[in-house]
């Protein structure tokens, strides 16, 4: 599974890099959402391979050879934070749309008096 995960991470990161370079706010938001998922996959990828290990639940006697439960906790936290920030980004983009009437970031520069 490791090679497949690696290819998936590569795809996520490269597509999101392309999207983050775009001038449309919507593209940027999708780019960020994809990138955060790519990073979550990377946490999974860097942790131990759980093949042949037992579920990390202690029933009476503690067993050795557990699968590492920590990456899942990390990913869960990262997903929640990423989700909240994506939501925040969407709201900010909505405010920008209300302010300038467009989601094309290139046209904001012309409106700004300082640039």
């Amino acid at each position, binding site marked *: 599974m490791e090679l497949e995960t690696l290819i998936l991470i590569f795809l996520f990161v490269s597509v999101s890099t392309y999207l*983050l370079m775009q001038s449309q*706010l919507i593209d*940027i938001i999708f780019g*960020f959402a994809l*990138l*955060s998922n790519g*990073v979550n996959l*990377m*946490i999974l*990828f*860097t*942790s131990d391979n759980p093949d042949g290990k037992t579920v990390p639940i202690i029933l009476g006697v*503690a067993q050795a050879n557990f699968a*590492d439960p*920590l*990456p899942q906790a*990390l990913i869960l*936290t*990262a997903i929640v*934070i990423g989700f*909240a*920030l994506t939501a*925040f*980004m969407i709201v*900010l*983009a909505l*405010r*920008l749309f209300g*302010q*300038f009437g467009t989601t094309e*970031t290139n046209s*904001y520069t012309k*409106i*700004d*008096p*300082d640039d």
Partner: protein
Amino acid sequence: MISISLPIITPLIFMVITGFLHVDYWRRKMALIGVLLHTCICAFLLWTCRHGEIKIAVVGEWLPPYGIVLLADLFACFFLFSISLVFLATNIYSLGEARDQPVHVLRIPLIFILQSGISLSLLTVDFFNLFVSFEMMLAASYALVSLELPEKYLKWAFSYLLVNLIGTLGFLCAAAMIYGYTGHLNMAAIAGLIKEQQDNPLILGWGYLLLGVFGLKAGIFPLFFWLPRTYSHLPPSLTALFAGTLTKVGVYVLIRMFVMVLPGPLLSLNGGILITSVLTMLLGVLGAIASTTIRGILSYHIISQIGYMILGLSLYTPLAIASALFFIIHNIWVKVSLFLIGGVARQAYGSDDLKKMGNLSILMPCLGAFFLVQAFSLIGFPPLSGFWGKYLLVSESIRLEYYFVAAVALLTSWLTLFSMLKIWIGAFWQNSNNKIHVKKLYKLKEKYISIGILVFASLALGFGAETMYQKATLAAQQIFQKEAYVQVIFSKTTGKGTR
């Protein structure tokens, strides 16, 4: 040790209280009590750690290295106290601000979240916990920026958000990589595991990733573009707060990572930081010279002075780190007070374009005196606090035979003098026909008190340089001793879970 978690919990409690209070008067009073209490707690922590004690608090009694550990040493306590004083001063200042115009309901609760996040990121020694605390701190700052930026500058809120989010994801990558390699998230445990691996390319790459991520937050050379534009359009108390806290936490984490966690001086990496620091210093101050508003000049100076702090890191000796620590504390107080002074001056004229101002030295002599003291301190005139930090940094780089770097540091000081004189002549000395908004100046008491606290603190730092220098040296020597940290953290043997 309950006292270590208090700087994190207290702001959260006050966040809840001020979030639910409906009466504006009481909300402001509670906010003042909250920041005052936080300052007292931080001063107490600094006092208890003054002889170089390392204190730990293990969250939930789970045994280290798997449980989350909070750690307070002298280095962290110095940062904690100086940042806490900034929160106190800007809070008092914003009491005055609230008289002129209504303040957003969420500002005070968000500032408490910011304070809690900063305290947690200064005290935690767990990588993932550091990520969460950075998110706490940055999420509060995103919200504050997008609430308080004027509508026409709102696009800078979006770029601020995006830039910091990408940095955050980079940090998550770094945490994942180090966890995959060492199987630990506790900084002291990692430091113990990798302390011999100076030539490991993985560690080097990891170091570069961390430099990029925290350099982005601190605003070092190629990554500072977002800073002046976002900061310079916020209300004065918020600009001052962000300038004094967010970038400095970035520098703090950089020093902690490179000195305490990563093994020894990583040669190519330290060379890279040295070049970056030189460019940061020089380009920051050149940006300041090109600006024409007080806030613009001061915002570019943040970048320039980050260069000095990073210079201390790149020299990588205990003395250099001590002088960087001295410089950072001085810079936090002086820079914040200059932003606040700029805020008062801007309020008087309704704009802070230097071409439209003048006469302030006659109209507000007290403000002029404050500005003069702090500006000369920023430039580095003896015996003010800025002199000692810069003197130590320059003498250390000459001792290590980096003559060019020392020359650039001195040149930067000279250019700082030039840009500070620009503010002094433009706002305080020149004759101006523009009418001052006298009506808006009826109460400046809070603002003078808040600036006065910081001026007093930085003067005390300048005149008590000997004591401060000894303590800074102690703090710097302490973070070079990894074994001590490993020992303290693993000394706890009773608790839940096994090793």
